[in-house]
């Protein structure tokens, strides 16, 4: 810097020189691959032979690709259900963990612990836990299922239930979690709630930031617990909720490891998610051009959803 505080060309060059590792890193590892993947999305490309320009064919073919459509619908469904569910669940946990208690830190640690476990290890353990024959969950569920089924079967004739319904109620069994196509998606959604520890921590940090005076003045105005939650906590926490919502949307569209380890997309294609099919197309079927097209479609979907979230934020997010 010159004696008068003005930045000279020499200063700028020196600054650029020191920033070069970062600039080169971003260019080589991010910008170039992004540009290449955009180009490849218009090519037939197997990674082993030179790309052949096919124009929009990769994008057009996606529309008639049943596996792609299924993975898109599955991911959409997962995102729509799991994001609000995870937000609600983690907010509830954060509110409970914010209640002053002697063991509060222990509870917080317990809630956060599952997030520290590698996802693959978690998936393997849950596979065993949910095994219909050897798993402890179905072992514990079989008795309540039997009682509830018997009770319902007893009252079912009063409602003119069909004999087949009465028969199936009498033999009510716990679900075949991952083996049944109707249950597999629900199971994956429920398991995705297992790792909400980080979201809970962010909510807890947000809750700590809410000034105590607001609660005091709300109490003076006669606001009870629920009203304080609705009129003070949630509005003050809305920037944190918004942050977790955006991160949740992006994460839900990128889900891969949990279903990959637990179901490999099955039964049938019941749990085939977008990123799994993208991986399959690119690295197993060597259709890297199609995989690049899918990656760009995914990016556009995530961008649109994030833009919608940002637009809606004007109405419900309150920044101090």
């Amino acid at each position, binding site marked *: 810097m010159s004696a008068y505080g003005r930045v000279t060309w020499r200063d700028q060059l020196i600054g650029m020189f020191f920033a070069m590792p970062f600039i080169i890193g971003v260019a080589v590892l991010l910008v170039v691959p992004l540009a290449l993947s955009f180009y490849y999305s218009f090519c037939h490309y197997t990674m082993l032979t030179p790309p052949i320009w096919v124009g929009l064919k990769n994008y057009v073919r996606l529309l008639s690709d049943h596996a792609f459509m299924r993975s898109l619908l599955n991911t959409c469904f997962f995102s729509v259900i799991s994001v609000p569910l995870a937000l609600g669940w983690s907010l509830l946990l954060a509110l409970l963990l914010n209640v002053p208690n002697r063991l509060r830190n222990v509870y917080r640690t317990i809630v956060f612990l599952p997030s520290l476990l590698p996802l693959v290890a978690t998936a393997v353990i849950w596979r065993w836990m949910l095994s219909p024959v*050897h798993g402890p969950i179905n072992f514990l569920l079989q008795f309540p299922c039997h009682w509830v089924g018997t009770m319902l079967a007893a009252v079912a004739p009063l409602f003119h239930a069909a004999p087949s319904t009465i028969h199936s109620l009498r033999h009510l069994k716990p679900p*075949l979690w991952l083996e049944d196509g109707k249950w597999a998606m629900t199971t994956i959604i429920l398991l995705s709630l297992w790792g909400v520890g980080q979201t809970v921590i962010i909510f807890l940090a947000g809750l700590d930031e809410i000034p105590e005076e607001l609660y005091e003045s709300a109490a003076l105005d006669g606001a009870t617990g629920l009203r304080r939650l609705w009129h003070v906590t949630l509005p003050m926490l809305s920037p944190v909720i918004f942050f977790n919502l955006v991160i949740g949307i992006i994460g839900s569209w990128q889900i891969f490891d949990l279903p990959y380890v637990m179901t490999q997309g099955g039964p049938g294609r019941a749990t085939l998610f977008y990123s799994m099919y993208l991986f399959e197309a690119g*690295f197993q*079927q060597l259709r890297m051009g199609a995989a690049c097209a899918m990656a760009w479609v995914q990016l556009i979907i995530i961008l649109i959803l994030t833009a919608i979230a940002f637009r809606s934020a004007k109405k419900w997010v309150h920044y101090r």
Partner: protein
Amino acid sequence: MAGHVGKWVSRITAAAIILPAVYLLIFGPRPNSYRRADGINIRGRIVVSFWESWTGFEARAMGDVVNRFNHSQSKIYVHVVEMSNPITKSLISIAGGDPPDIVALWSQPMGQFMTNDALVPLTPLIREHVVNRRDFPGWIWRLCAPHGILYTLPATPETNALFWNKILFARAGLNPNKPPRTIRQLDAMAARLTVFGRDGRIKQAGFLPNEPGWWNGQWGIWFGNQLYNPKTHHFNIDTPQSIAAYRWYASWPKKLGRNRLKLFESGLGQFASANNPFMDGKVAMEMQGSYFVQFIQRYNKNLIGHYGVAPFPTAHGSPRSANWGDCDLWGIPRAARHVRAAMKVLAFFIQRKNIEFLNEKQFKASPYLKVSPEFFKKNKNPFIREFQKEMTAPGIQTNPASPIMSRVISEMVLSASRVWNGQSVTATFRHAQHLVDRWQREEHELNARAQKSSDR
């Protein structure tokens, strides 16, 4: 004063750390980077990297052959890297320009390798009379030399057979020495062998097409379907034979109860364990390959002598007229660093005595047509003669070198799972045929374009 002392303390501390470190660097112990764990000094040798996926006894058998090679000469050293899924990894490494020198493959992705010029032709090995097509069954040679050019060498071949549990046969009142020859007999025997518990759950299944479920895309073969026509290059997926096969396949959940069957299947143990359903008596008959004999000897010695092996039944009742064959293969990836050295290694591996050694240790048949008497004498697989005979069976079908083969099999398996879950067999397989035909058209079109651009 205090500052002066502090300076000295930090100098002494720094010296206490740096001096021993420098001493260790100069005089300390160092690994001999030239001496490998097997005791061989590789200084001056070309190191050939070999990626393969076997584990346990199969990996040990391959390791023994590699050791034989490493000790047989002093110019090349083969370094084995065991990994899961070496095929995908080697494809990516070829794309990245840093592949291994030798890769273990199997036949399903061969078409992808061919179309993408991913392997080095092994024609020098034919010229030097290391291999000769007349030494191998036709289907093995077609796997190694699709379109007439030798790209791979056969390592350990595999055909399927019916394994049946004689104890369970006797318990069900069946002749334990008379396995089924037709699918109809298989169904009838399976019905007698299936046992239900008091609660209605399945306790023992006579047969399950999903156990182990590795050939769910190929059931049509045992019903007379030719999955791929090499003359027309057409995949036959919705032929009457294929439809009949999958009607039979879909009949199992109907017969046994879909949910009941799912519950039973979810409790079956791992393949390579004592809880393997065939080994622990949960499934009485199973389709398996010759390697299974070694797994039985390892995990359930009580079953030795109490099970039999026979050609898998067919719909029309002529055994050996239909089977699925496959083979582990060795190839040299394009852009491998040591192609000539890798050829020498492969020339050693493919020597009859080494191939027989490897297959004997893995309980598999030899890919060679002629087998030495020692191979049978030394082999601990009591059924090795049957499996060796099966190698030349007339009805063996195998993976064609089609670039879409992996996708075809995936679609077949998916279609099978759909009909298993109650969808219409005809509609499902007609849809699969439609998809496969489209992929073939697309592939054909792309190949034509690639040809055009390379001509330019």
